């Protein structure tokens, strides 16, 4: 496992402005990003060969995806073309695949939760891949000021898919997102979640990655005003031969913002590979940032690989709290001993402990059906690898 990188630079006056190594300059122009060769910091953990050309864009955009939506009446859901002025206003693509996806999608889904509206039920967006070939998508979710909603984003089927998802959480709004990567075993996905958190707004994200051959998901959070709060939770169960990569970036670019990042995963089987990169930037001149990130991996068998790298860059001396932790290990003998000492057979004790490891996160999802479904799928994967 790689060691954490921490860089602390004091607030400087005059001379060169401190430049973050973590905050890549964005661009909508694909040509601004050279085709990666795998040696770049942001690509070195990703097996490029298995991206099936998604980073090169050599194949024709012939993949087919369907997008189904379901929302309560008070929430607006639209399918719009590339020219819709609301798209692409909250972010700049930060890597080649993101720029390619923005340049290549044909239709976008726009979800609007009107101001001061509390959605009466979760909004569902289901993206289903129907075959091979590259496909590109775009989704914009806007929670207008003082609104509240939960959006469930689900990916299923077979695809080689890249997309950008914009979450705009306006002042005082509360948006919860559950993104479920439940692909068939052969799917490839590269996704970016770009989130802007407004004044006193709250964003909660649950990224649940179970399926696919390769899933690389990069949630990025920035703040537009003080008082914003972002909690990013992640759960993955990486089986034999799967590559699951999660790369979060929290940019505390304004004062008095809070973030929590907690990603937990289990790995089981030969060549199961999980990557977690947790970047946090605490910007120059900001005060009162409260940030903590945490990654835990449960290694269930031999032959797996975990890369877990927290990066923290601080450009100010006025920080409320900033910390990180990363731990990877096997099931705790002492947990198993305790359960077994009460008569519980070894295999059942193992299941209880693994279940418990995930339950801590799953129990925070406020949609009961989803909690049960995710736990059931985790158990199915568990049964597969027992």
């Amino acid at each position, binding site marked *: 496992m790689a060691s954490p990188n921490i860089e602390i630079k004091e607030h400087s006056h005059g001379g060169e402005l401190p430049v973050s190594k973590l905050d890549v300059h964005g661009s909508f122009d694909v040509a601004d990003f050279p085709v990666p060769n795998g040696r770049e910091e942001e690509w070195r953990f990703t097996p490029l060969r298995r991206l099936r050309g998604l980073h090169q864009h050599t194949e024709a955009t012939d993949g087919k995806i369907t997008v189904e939506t379901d929302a309560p009446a008070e929430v607006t859901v639209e399918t719009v073309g590339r020219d819709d002025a609301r798209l692409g206003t909250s972010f700049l693509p930060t890597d080649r695949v993101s720029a390619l996806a923005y340049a290549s999608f044909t239709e976008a889904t726009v979800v609007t939760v009107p101001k001061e509206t509390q959605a009466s039920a979760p909004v569902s967006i289901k993206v289903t891949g129907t075959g091979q070939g590259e496909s590109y998508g775009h989704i914009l979710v806007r929670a207008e000021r003082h609104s509240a909603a939960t959006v469930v984003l689900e990916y299923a089927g077979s695809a080689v898919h890249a997309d950008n998802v914009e979450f705009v959480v306006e002042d005082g709004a509360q948006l919860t997102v559950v993104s479920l990567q439940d692909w068939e075993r052969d799917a490839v996905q590269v996704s970016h979640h770009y989130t802007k958190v407004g004044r006193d707004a709250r964003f909660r994200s649950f990224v649940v990655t179970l399926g696919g051959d390769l899933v690389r998901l990069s949630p990025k959070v920035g703040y537009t005003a003080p008082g914003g709060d972002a909690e990013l939770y992640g759960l993955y169960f990486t089986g034999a031969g799967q590559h699951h990569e999660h790369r979060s970036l929290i940019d505390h670019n304004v004062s008095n913002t809070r973030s929590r990042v907690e990603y937990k995963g289990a790995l089981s089987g030969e060549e199961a590979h999980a990557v977690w990169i947790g970047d946090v930037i605490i910007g120059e001149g900001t005060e009162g940032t409260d940030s903590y990130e945490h990654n835990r991996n449960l290694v269930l068998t031999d032959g797996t690989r975990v890369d877990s790298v927290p990066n923290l860059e601080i450009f100010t001396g006025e920080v409320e709290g900033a910390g990180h932790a990363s731990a990877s290990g096997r099931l705790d003998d002492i947990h198993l001993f305790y*359960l*077994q000492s*009460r*008569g519980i057979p070894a295999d059942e004790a193992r299941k209880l402990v693994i279940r418990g490891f995930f339950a801590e996160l799953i129990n925070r999802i406020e949609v009961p059906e989803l909690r049960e479904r995710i736990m059931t799928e985790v158990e199915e994967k568990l049964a597969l690898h027992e």
Partner: protein
Amino acid sequence: MTKFEIRGLRADVLIGAEERQEILKGVDLTINSGETHAIMGPNGSGKSTLAYAIAGHPKYEITDGEVLLDGENVLEMGVDERARAGLFLAMQYPVEVPGVSMSNFLRSAVTAVRGEAPKLRAFSKELQEAMKGLSIDPSFAARGVNEGFSGGEKKRHEILQLELLKPKVAILDETDSGLDVDALKVVSEGINRARATGEIGVMLITHYTRILNYVKPDFVHVFAHGQVAESGGPELAEVLEAEGYERFVKAGA
């Protein structure tokens, strides 16, 4: 009628991959159902090792001797089999198992030990009553196993498990440590309820005589240097209270 016999038990504590140290140096002790044996002794004498070694804790390895429960050698059983055979260890430091709810854990344990799943409603009632008897707030059933519990709360839950699992032999490892007088009374009452059936043998491991005012022992053994150094009736506890363990610490040191 159950007979629990420890014969010539020797055990090592495993320290890291290579290192080990012998802690138990030939322990002999017999406990019949209906009897309570207090095991007293100075810190570091091996009392807790005795408890953990019998239960099958991975940090300890038995090198010689046997532990018989009605003639069956429990050392040949897995940790879970020992519990299902009727052995129970109330731990000095109960383990926190995050994310596993106490109620789910207890139901799994009761199902395993009784050999069949109890009816949900009947079990829920049984659990509520047992918790009430130990002054445990009902909200604890939904919390993770021992997660964030205070020392006293953990001890109450160990005795809760004792009452639900109804073992033939219970080893209580310093159940009194860290309890205030009120908590000590509550916990002692739980132990006495379990003893009232007359069908349980109890090995009560303690450093202090305090708990013996509430849970009256039939026999008292002094444990020192990995062995039973002296045995007697309840009066031995009074001698220890007055004199301390000094002569046992010196002897053989």
